[in-house]
C-alpha cells in the first residue's frame, strides 16, 4: 500500500476520537474491544469507521478476548489495536505478556480511570503507571506513551504504531479520563501512513513477512527464530530474555521523548506526564511571570500595619522564581539520559501525579543527587495550577497565599 500524501484538516475532536482517527491514519485495520468508560468513544468510533476503511471491527466477549484477538490479527497481517480502561487492562495482562514474548507489534490504549477494581468509572487517575510497565509476569520491557492533549492523543497513537513495528513489541498508550474526554481543536491528516515492519537484530521470534505466506510457530514458551521451544536450554533461554529486553533498553535513544519548558536557567523542575503536565505548565508560566497580568493581587498582610488595623495589598513579583517543566512523553522506558540532561542544573524536582506517588520513585532513582518531592493527588480531580504554584512557593521557601484569577 503506497502512502497517499496527506492533506491537513482542522477539527474539534474528543481525545478518544482523535486516538481512533490516529490509529486509522497509522494503518490500523483491525480493532477488537469491549466498551468501558472512559474509553468507550474509541470503540464507538472504530465500530463505524473501521468498515469504511476496509478493516474489521469486533466487539468481543471481554477484554481477554480483545487482547488475544488483536495478537492473532497482527500475525494474520493486519495492524491491530484495542482500547480499554483499568479493569479491562487488568484482564489483558496475560495477553500482553504473550505479545511481548512472541514479539507481536500491537497497540493497547488504556484510558485510565480511578481504581482499584471498578473504582471510579467516570473520573481520572494515573494509578496504572506501574501496571503499564510491570503488569504481566516475567522479564520484559515495554514502551508506554502518555499523551496530554487531544493533538497528542492523535500523534502518539500514530507514534505507538511506528514504535510497535520498529521494535516488534506491544506499545501502551497510557491516556487518562481528562485527556480522553477532553475536546480540542486539532490537525489531522487524510489518507494513511505506510508504517513498515523492520527486521531487527535483537528480535528472536520468527520474522516472517506478513501476508507472504510462510509456515511458522507463534510460541509463548521461550523459542528460537523458527519458533521452536528452547525453554529447557538455559543458555539459549537466557539469551532470549536478554534480547527481548535489550531491543528496548539499547534503543532508548530512539524511543525516549520529553518536552521541556523554561528549563535553560531553572533551579526547580516540575516533572509531569499525561494531563497533569497541563496545569503544571500553567503554574510554571505564572511563576515565570509570563502571565503576570493574570496574577491576582496577593493579599499579604503586613504585621505592623495590621496592628494599626490597616491591611495593605502588595503585588508580588515572582519573576525571580526559576522554575521549569519537563514533560515526559515516553513514560516507559523512563528516558533516563534526557531527564538527567534536562535537570542538570536543578536541585529540586517536584513530581505531581494523580496517584499515591508512583512515578516519583522512578524519578528519584534516576535523579539520585536531587531532592525529589512527590505531589500526589487522588480522588479523581486533576491538580490545579494553584496547587502546583503553592508547592513551588513552598519548596522555594516563600510562604504566601496564591490566587490565580483565570
Amino acid at each position, binding site marked *: 500500500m503506497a502512502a497517499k500524501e496527506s492533506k491537513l484538516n482542522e477539527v*474539534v475532536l474528543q481525545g478518544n476520537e482523535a486516538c481512533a482517527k490516529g490509529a486509522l491514519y497509522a494503518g490500523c485495520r483491525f480493532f477488537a474491544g469491549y466498551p468501558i468508560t472512559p474509553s468507550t468513544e474509541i470503540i464507538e468510533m472504530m465500530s463505524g469507521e473501521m468498515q469504511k476503511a476496509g478493516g474489521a471491527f469486533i466487539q468481543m466477549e471481554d477484554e481477554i478476548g480483545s487482547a488475544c484477538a488483536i495478537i492473532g490479527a497482527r500475525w494474520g497481517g493486519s495492524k491491530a489495536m484495542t482500547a480499554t480502561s483499568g479493569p479491562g487492562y487488568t484482564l489483558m495482562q496475560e495477553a500482553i505478556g504473550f505479545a511481548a514474548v512472541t514479539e507481536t507489534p500491537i497497540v493497547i490504549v488504556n484510558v485510565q480511570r480511578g481504581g482499584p477494581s471498578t473504582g471510579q468509572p467516570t*473520573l481520572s487517575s494515573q494509578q496504572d503507571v506501574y501496571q503499564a510497565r510491570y503488569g504481566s509476569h516475567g522479564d520484559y520491557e515495554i514502551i508506554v506513551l502518555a499523551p496530554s492533549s487531544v493533538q497528542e492523543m492523535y500523534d502518539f497513537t500514530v507514534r505507538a504504531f511506528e514504535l510497535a513495528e520498529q521494535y516488534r513489541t506491544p506499545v501502551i498508550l497510557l491516556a487518562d479520563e481528562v485527556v480522553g474526554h*477532553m475536546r480540542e481543536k486539532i490537525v489531522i491528516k487524510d489518507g494513511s501512513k505506510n508504517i513498515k515492519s523492520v527486521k531487527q537484530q535483537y528480535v528472536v521470534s520468527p520474522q516472517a513477512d506478513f501476508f507472504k505466506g510462510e509456515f511458522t510457530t507463534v510460541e509463548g514458551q521461550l523459542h528460537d527464530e523458527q519458533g521452536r521451544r528452547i525453554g529447557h536450554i538455559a543458555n539459549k533461554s537466557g539469551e532470549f530474555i536478554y534480547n527481548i529486553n535489550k531491543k528496548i533498553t539499547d534503543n532508548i535513544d530512539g524511543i525516549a521523548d520529553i518536552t521541556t519548558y523554561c528549563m535553560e536557567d531553572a533551579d526547580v523542575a516540575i516533572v509531569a506526564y499525561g494531563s497533569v503536565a497541563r496545569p503544571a505548565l500553567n503554574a510554571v508560566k505564572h511563576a515565570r511571570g509570563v502571565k503576570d497580568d*493574570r496574577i491576582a493581587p496577593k493579599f499579604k498582610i503586613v504585621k505592623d500595619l495590621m496592628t494599626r488595623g490597616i491591611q495593605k495589598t502588595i503585588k508580588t513579583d515572582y519573576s525571580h522564581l526559576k522554575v521549569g517543566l519537563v514533560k515526559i512523553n515516553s513514560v516507559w522506558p523512563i528516558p533516563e539520559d534526557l531527564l538527567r540532561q534536562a535537570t542538570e542544573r536543578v536541585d529540586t524536582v517536584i513530581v505531581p501525579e494523580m496517584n499515591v506517588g508512583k512515578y516519583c520513585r522512578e524519578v528519584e532513582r534516576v535523579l539520585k543527587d536531587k531532592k525529589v518531592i512527590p505531589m500526589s493527588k487522588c480522588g479523581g480531580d486533576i491538580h490545579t495550577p494553584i496547587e502546583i504554584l503553592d508547592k513551588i512557593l513552598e519548596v522555594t521557601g516563600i510562604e504566601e497565599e496564591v490566587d490565580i*484569577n*483565570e
Partner: protein
Amino acid sequence: MRINVRFAGSGGQGVILASVLLSKAYGLEENYNIAQTQSYGPEARGGACKAEVVISDEEIDYMKVNKADVFVALNQVGYDKYIDTVKDDAVILINSTLVEADRPNVYKIQATQRAEDMGKPFVVNIIALGALTRLMPKVHYPAVEEEIKRHFNASIASANLDAYKMGYDIMDQDLKELGYKTGFGDARTY
C-alpha cells in the same frame, strides 16, 4: 484573551452538548483555541453534571476552569455548587424556571418553561445556548447556528434551530434594554 465558561446542571439536561456546540462554534467558526471538558457521575440521567469550555487566542495550557468568567446554571443544585467559584464581574445566566439566584445582576432565561411551551422539553439546553451566545463576546449568531445544523439530524434540527433563535432573541431584547453590547456590559470590553 482567555474566557472560562462553566455549565452546571443535571444529567440529561444537555449540559455537555451545549458546551460542545459552543466550543465548536468558537473553535471552527470563529477560529479560537478551545478546550472542552466535563465531569459527571456514573448515572445516565440525573446526578450532578458540569461542563467547561476554555476559549483563548493563545495555546491553552490548563484546560479546566478555576474561576469562571461565564457561568450557566440549568438547575439549582448546579447553581449552589459553583456560584462561589465565579469572578466578581462574571456573566451569570440561569434557567429561571428551576433556579433561584441569591444575587443581583443575573441574566435569566425561562428555558425549561419555554421548552415545555414549545412541546419540545429536550431543547432546554439549546434555548439556554441561544441566550448564552447573545451574552458572549467574540462569537456570532451564525457560528453556533452552523454547529447546531451540523450536529442534529434533519428531523430535529429545525426544533433546535427555533429554540436557539428564541433564546438568542429574548436575551437580545434584555441586553438592548440594558444598553450592553455583551453580557459583560460595561465591566469589560473585548
